[in-house]
């Protein structure tokens, strides 16, 4: 009897558990999925309504449906281009094989395909450029920030320079960087294209500052007690930086890095547009110059892709920050 009642109790308990679990699950999905979906739907609706009322010289402003159509076309164009490229190389190989059949000593050449860069190619170029620029900026900014955070004198020396260059727009840098790269980067066998370097350096110059400033603040605000611990243990400078300074400043460094990456991504599009360097910015500019009835839709597709990529980049940094940070209780968003 006892056993039976115990079992029935247990099953009741588990049923209750599943019901309450279900409620929780529904609640959670409502918060994490449904509400954002509602937001997006309302936005799309408003967008369509407004688009219907805006007539430009290139036709009607694209609504969500037109943009969707154009996005599909962009992907199809990319696939077509890839097929053409594959066919091009296949033709060459066949021709070369024939040549070699006739004369085994013949010199054969493979010519590179020089088709137009597609939307997807431009995305890849932009991502590579921003990654390179961001990497340069990080390699300079973090050590500089640590030095200035540790030494009041270094900070006082560098601060006016930081404050002067921080508000400079990327567009102001661009002509200078372009000329400097052209002047200094002269090799017969370039690893990087000049346009790539120009964009990357412009990105680096602009996304240096948030990381520098935040690293300085992070390093300068280390708990006094921890510094005293380090002094009592007589840690050497290198160990002090590795064991105390960097871990303690990591949250602020990452705040800076995230701001930097977001800035870098914005700067890159502007730089590509202005300098006609390959990438998403150039894609938008080309479409604008092209001025067909589809152009606005294609530009809008690019705008959305730029936004989504920016969002993904930030999420990646956030994930990295969560992994690296020791403070698992901190709420990061």
């Amino acid at each position: 009897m006892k056993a039976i009642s115990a079992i029935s109790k247990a099953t009741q308990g588990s049923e209750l558990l599943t019901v309450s679990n279900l409620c929780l699950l529904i609640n959670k999905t409502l918060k994490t999925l449904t509400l954002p979906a509602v937001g997006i739907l309302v936005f799309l609706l408003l967008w369509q309504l407004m688009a219907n009322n805006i007539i430009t010289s290139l036709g009607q402003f694209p609504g969500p449906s037109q943009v969707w159509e154009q996005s599909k076309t962009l992907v199809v164009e990319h696939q077509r281009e890839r097929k053409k490229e594959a066919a091009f190389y296949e033709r060459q190989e066949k021709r070369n094989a024939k040549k070699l059949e006739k004369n085994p000593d013949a010199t054969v050449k493979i010519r590179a395909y020089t088709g137009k860069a597609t939307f997807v190619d431009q995305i890849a170029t932009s991502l590579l450029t921003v990654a390179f620029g961001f990497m340069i900026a990080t390699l300079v900014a973090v050590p500089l920030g640590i030095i200035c955070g540790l030494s009041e004198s270094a900070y006082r020396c560098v601060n006016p320079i930081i404050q002067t260059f921080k508000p400079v727009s990327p567009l102001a840098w661009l002509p200078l960087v372009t000329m400097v790269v052209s002047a200094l980067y002269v090799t017969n066998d370039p690893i990087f294209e000049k346009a790539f370097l120009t964009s990357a350096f412009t990105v680096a110059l602009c996304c240096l500052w948030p990381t520098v400033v935040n690293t300085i603040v992070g390093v300068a605000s280390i708990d006094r007690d921890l510094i005293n611990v380090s002094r009592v243990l007589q840690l050497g400078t290198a160990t002090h930086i590795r064991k105390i300074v960097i871990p303690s400043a990591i949250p602020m460094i990452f705040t800076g890095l995230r701001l930097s990456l977001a800035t870098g991504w914005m700067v890159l599009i502007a730089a590509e547009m202005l300098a006609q360097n390959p990438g998403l910015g150039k894609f938008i500019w080309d479409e604008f110059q092209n001025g067909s009835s589809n152009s606005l839709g294609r530009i809008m597709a690019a705008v959305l892709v730029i936004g989504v990529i920016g969002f993904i980049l930030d999420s990646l940094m956030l994930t990295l920050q969560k992994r690296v940070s020791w403070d698992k209780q901190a709420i990061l968003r």
Partner: protein
Amino acid sequence: MKKNYLEISQVGIEFATEGEPFRALQNVNLAIAKGEFISLIGHSGCGKSTVLNIVAGLYEATEGGVILEGREVDEPGPDRAVVFQNHALLPWLTVYQNVELAVKCVFKKSKSKTEIRDWVEHNLSLVHMDHALHKLPAELSGGMKQRVGIARCLAMQPKMLLMDEPFGALDALTRAHLQDSLMEIQQQLGNTVIMITHDVDEAVLLSDRIVMMTNGPAASIGEVLRIDLPRPRDRVILADDSAFNNYRQQVLRFLYEKQKNPATKKIQAA
């Protein structure tokens, strides 16, 4: 027992401020024997921590000096370990790693890898924290964190153990536990200790001598009270002990009659 293991002589310190320099300490003289447990007691702002920081080498005295075992103290070092009020554990290192960092700094050359590991674990078991070796400080209670802080200092085998209100941030029960642990460890290892406290009971229970400080500015040592209670001491038995209560009263009288709290003085003046 050698009387002058640590000698604080004619120590005074001035801090630079916007206007006139602020004189925090003047004419502080104290000689401490090896293995002695000293408590520094006094009202807030009387410069207790400043004395401790000068001994630690974290502050530099404006005049006078500190001599430890015949050598002048001129910089902080692991031979004068400091237990901070707020534990000061590195939050990104586990309990074990926190102690290991200190052990590696002191015994890098003299101990092998396994010896270092054993020594870290031994010291953590002294403070009864060997069950939480791989936890982060954030996962521990305040009392446990302070235990680890003490273990870190013990593991350095310092000549002096300097404790800056080590139990000040803890609740009464946890504090009592830690005081008992500290007495037990002191019985075993015979460290030379300077401890800052606000708690009269704590001072009488733990100390060999209580150093009472006058109010700042230009604070100095007012009285020194020797506590001749047999060890090991038991708080429950001592609660009824007339000698214990007599010592307590002497400290209280110093603090509340001879050296009225500067804050209350101001209120009376107003």
